């Protein structure tokens, strides 16, 4: 039955990705400005625009373009003609209007950066957010609780970009404890790698850690009031075990939901953070492509982000029924 459920959901995933594709396509290819005009530049004529349209394949009917794009993802497709002909192997997401690079290659290039940012930040915010929330809940009403929650509040009202620049100013410019970030691969220089990703991690993690700590606190306080917590204490379990097993699981189950979403969304790129720190990830690519109206790249980023979110949600749903036995039984 589980297998059937998962199969059903996977079919949905595909359908949703298809719809997302379609909508993105419609929105960015019809509502958005004509990329040919941007490429065309200053001294532009209708003729040249038509020419560029033909090169980019924008002169074909929209549906043809759309199915060409879809087909390309699964079977690859050819671009150009004569000596200019290039074959774009599956999965083919087309070529950037702006740089002529294969979009798939661009994505594959940048995904590791975004993944590094996302995973590092997620680890950080989960650790800090949950630990702080838990401590606050346990020490509810103490100065620690007040301070931590005050900080959490402060942290969540600081916009990302402000935090990013402020951190950079303090840590790099003033105190000089970190170098200016430069995205080197881990293998090249682990120390610089770590130093460079540290600030992006902190920046991204701050907002989430604040949210998570507050949610954790609220949920743990609710859970601590349950009778079964008294039972757990009556058993003489260590406080750590009592907390971890009895309080955290009920309290974190709802948090798992948003974690899945947040993390999946991050894999699709952290637009602002990557831009501020000059990290060449998917988010920065998205920002650049929007700015330059590079539709194939926008399509790819959208699809990628959509893919992560949809799969992320599927995973959450599956995990959720695992996490709460009462839900499992009734989910007929």
């Amino acid at each position: 039955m589980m297998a059937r459920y998962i199969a059903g959901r996977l079919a949905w995933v595909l359908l949703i990705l298809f719809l997302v594709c379609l909508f993105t396509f419609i929105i960015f290819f019809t509502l958005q400005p004509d990329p040919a005009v941007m490429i065309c530049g200053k001294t532009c004529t209708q003729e040249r625009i038509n020419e560029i349209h033909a090169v980019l394949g924008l002169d074909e009917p929209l549906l043809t373009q759309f199915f060409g794009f879809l087909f390309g993802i699964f079977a690859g497709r050819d671009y150009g003609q004569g000596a200019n002909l290039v074959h774009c192997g599956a999965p083919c997401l087309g070529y950037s209007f702006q740089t002529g690079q294969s979009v798939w290659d661009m994505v594959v290039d940048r995904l590791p950066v975004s993944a590094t940012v996302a995973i590092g930040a997620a680890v950080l915010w989960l650790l800090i957010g949950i630990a702080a929330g838990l401590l606050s809940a346990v020490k509810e009403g103490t100065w620690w609780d007040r301070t931590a929650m005050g900080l959490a509040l402060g942290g969540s009202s600081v916009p990302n970009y402000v935090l990013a620049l402020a951190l950079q100013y303090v840590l790099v410019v003033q105190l000089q404890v970190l170098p200016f970030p430069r995205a080197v691969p881990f293998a090249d220089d682990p120390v610089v790698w770590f130093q460079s990703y540290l600030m992006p991690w902190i920046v991204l993690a701050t907002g989430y850690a604040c949210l998570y700590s507050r949610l954790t606190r609220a949920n743990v306080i609710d859970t601590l009031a349950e009778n079964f917590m008294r039972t757990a204490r009556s058993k003489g379990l260590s406080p750590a075990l009592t907390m971890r097993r009895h309080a955290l699981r009920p309290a974190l189950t709802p948090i798992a939901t948003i974690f899945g979403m947040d993390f999946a969304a991050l894999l699709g790129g952290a637009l602002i953070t990557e831009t501020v720190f000059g990290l060449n990830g998917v988010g920065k690519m998205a920002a650049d492509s929007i700015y330059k109206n590079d539709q194939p790249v926008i399509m790819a980023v959208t699809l990628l982000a959509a893919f992560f979110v949809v799969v992320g949600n599927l995973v959450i749903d599956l995990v959720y029924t695992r996490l709460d036995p009462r839900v499992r039984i009734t989910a007929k």
Partner: protein
Amino acid sequence: MSDLLVVEDLTVTFPTTRGPVDVVKGVSFTVGRDETVGIVGESGSGKSMTSLAVMGLLPKGARTSGSIRLDGTELLGRPDRELRRLRGDQMSMIFQDPLSSLNPYYTVGLQIEEMYRAHRGGSRAAARKVAVEALRQVDLPEPERRVDYYPHQFSGGQRQRVMIAMALVCSPALLIADEPTTALDVTVQAQILKLLAGLRQERGMGMVFITHDLAVISSIATRVLVMRQGEQVEYGTAEQVFAEPRHDYTRMLLESIPRIDDPVDGEVKA
């Protein structure tokens, strides 16, 4: 023989918007080894609070005064860290409302195992065997399978038996049972009472038994404490309390016991 538990002048106070309220007022009693003390009394009279005070598990905000000594050591005011070692091992408690007292997220097996392992260590597999055995002891059908059930999959009485099994798994020196058999039918109840009596003798376990069923008290308790509105209205040997109650309230209680052989109210039958 030194007493296992000595409670002296115990007072439990709750702060409320209208000032502090004493829900337990100066209760004193002792429990010896191999002895059962029964607590009976009005609903809301502070029976559960008294037992929670012994366990050190009163709700937040509650204050206590007086003295509670387990095996000669004072429990009141001791840091939670030290109480923790005693809980489950030296003293353990069966809570009144089993559904809300069991964690809905875990199988009952795990909830029993973790207690055993916290005090006795050992592998999960070993603990699981102990858990199955404990469930069998309390007469739960198919314990091997039921050990993997979640609390909501049990009937009320079964949950109560799970609670009992859990409390007994480490064979504590002191067992506090807060209405442990209210959801059990009389046959199962009889079995459980026999089990508890057996353990008491075998291991010299002291027991505090809270119930409304005076007949049950009369059959297992050596001493009885009667409570009303937080106060201790009567305390004595079972024989004295049942045969020669001193307080009006006790008498009234004994009068109100419904009896199977009582004549039934004719009006209703008509």
